[in-house]
């Protein structure tokens, strides 16, 4: 079997008797772009919450690069190299775009607890932060207060901030949700670009984005894996059509 970066074994999450994620076995291949799709409420976001331990796992195991990470703290998982984004845009709204990216760089460099130093010293990260902003097409927004930025730009900023940590595995929860066609195209190209040298697991409702980007697709339905394969296989599966495409098409 090919080299896998992340594996789950019977991953299960129950909310007071309701099974949101049901014995999911996922294998994410290193260097691939893997999509997690499924109708609303299928449990996609919950899987993300389990992988990053924002929610405790009810049953099952998660292995990252061969080591079991089940039970670790979310911040610890992030430091191992699994960095997630959120379904609703996750930015620091009262800071500038540059500062948003810098917060990530600061963490990576371990400048966290230095309360006696001047914040002016953080300007040493400006060049790298500008570079990352440039990469996602935000160079003209670097000084802008994030709260005032258009929605699509906030999502791009989120990707720049995540990239600052150089994660091995990026988890993107509906990165194009709520975007206009132009922004969707830009984001798709951006994800393609940043996927070089890393692995991406993404939840995406827009199937043209999925078909353009993803090497492998896992379909979730009511918490369980319905099927898995490449786009051609999955989209030809009548059960998927029934469960998912029937609704989307």
């Amino acid at each position, binding site marked *: 079997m090919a080299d896998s970066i992340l594996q789950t074994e019977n991953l299960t999450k129950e909310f007071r008797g309701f099974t949101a994620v049901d014995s999911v076995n996922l294998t994410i291949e290193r260097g691939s772009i893997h999509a997690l799709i499924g109708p609303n409420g299928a449990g996609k976001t919950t899987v993300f919450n389990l992988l990053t331990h924002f929610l405790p796992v009810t049953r099952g195991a998660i292995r990252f690069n061969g080591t079991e990470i089940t039970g670790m703290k979310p911040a610890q998982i992030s430091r191992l190299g699994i960095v997630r984004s959120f379904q609703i845009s996750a930015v620091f709204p009262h800071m500038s775009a540059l500062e948003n990216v810098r917060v990530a760089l600061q*963490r990576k460099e371990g400048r966290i607890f230095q309360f006696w130093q001047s*914040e002016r010293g953080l300007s040493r990260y400006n060049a790298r932060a500008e570079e990352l902003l440039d990469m996602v097409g935000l160079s003209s927004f670097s000084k802008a207060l994030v709260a005032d930025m258009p929605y699509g730009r906030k999502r791009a900023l989120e990707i720049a901030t995540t990239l600052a940590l150089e994660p091995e595995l990026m988890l993107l929860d509906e990165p194009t949700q709520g975007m206009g066609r132009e922004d969707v195209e830009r984001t798709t190209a951006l994800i393609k670009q940043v996927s070089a040298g890393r692995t991406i697991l993404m939840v995406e409702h827009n199937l043209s984005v999925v078909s353009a980007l993803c090497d492998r697709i896992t379909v979730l339905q009511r918490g369980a894996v319905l099927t898995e394969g490449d786009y051609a296989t999955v989209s030809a599966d009548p059960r998927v059509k029934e469960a998912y495409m029937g609704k989307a098409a």
Partner: protein
Amino acid sequence: MTNRNILIVLALAALMVAPFVVYPIFLMKILCFALFAAAFNLILGYGGLLSFGHAAYFGGAAYICGHALKVWGLPTELGILVGGLAAGAFGAVVGLLAIRRQGIYFAMITLALAQMAFFFFISADFTGGENGLQGVPRGYALGLFDLSNNITLYYFVLAICLGGFLIVVRAVHSPFGQVLRALRDNEDRAISLGYDVERVKLLAFVLSATLSGIAGATKTVVFQLASLTDVNWHMSGEVVLMTLLGGVGTLLGPVLGAGVVVALQNTLASGPLSAWVPVIMGTIFVICVLAFRRGIVGEINALIKRSF
């Protein structure tokens, strides 16, 4: 920028001449409470955590500093430092127990532990019980300047409180302050970027407790007294009021709030309304919470923003 520098120079000049115009003891009381409120604001305004037990750090340090000066005979500076460090150590213990909780649970745990401290101080021998720890010697600054002179003492207290305030300002504008801002803005995102938010909050809490302790210890030197008032839960409420009134999450707000509250208390205490002080303070508190949450400085800032 230059405008700001001019304002800073004017403020410093005013602070230098103030004791010749206004009763120094009154000024020193304001200074100590200003530092206390600024330290408290570090955890409420910048850490987003409502502690309802800050009297324990203020009052605890007041007793410990009083004891250190009176019984151990430590030099004044060292006594104040010991008080501050003790408060910081107690803050670390409280923080470790409380920091995982949010909102009202955090407030309740901090209150409960502060009440335990209160009962300790009420029953411990060295505190003098209801009478308080009296007759604390003021000593000499740097072993040279006699602090029994109120004007000399004023400059000594000013230096400590300004120094403490500058530590708050620096912490807010430091790499750590940047992390605190991010955390207040979006805690989940900060976690997903790999921040141990509990450790970050704990440091803010310990800093806040230590500086609150320095404020309380300095107050002991001024009044030569540490008493149950300093550790009482009323004191925890008072610092919340000062911070809210002046403007939570602003640097100058708590300082201003402390000035207003202390001045009001002093004026009312000697007048016919003295019995009504708690009621008046309570009313101000309610008005603050209901009508202007941003506090004095916050409202002014918003006004300036809107008019440009």
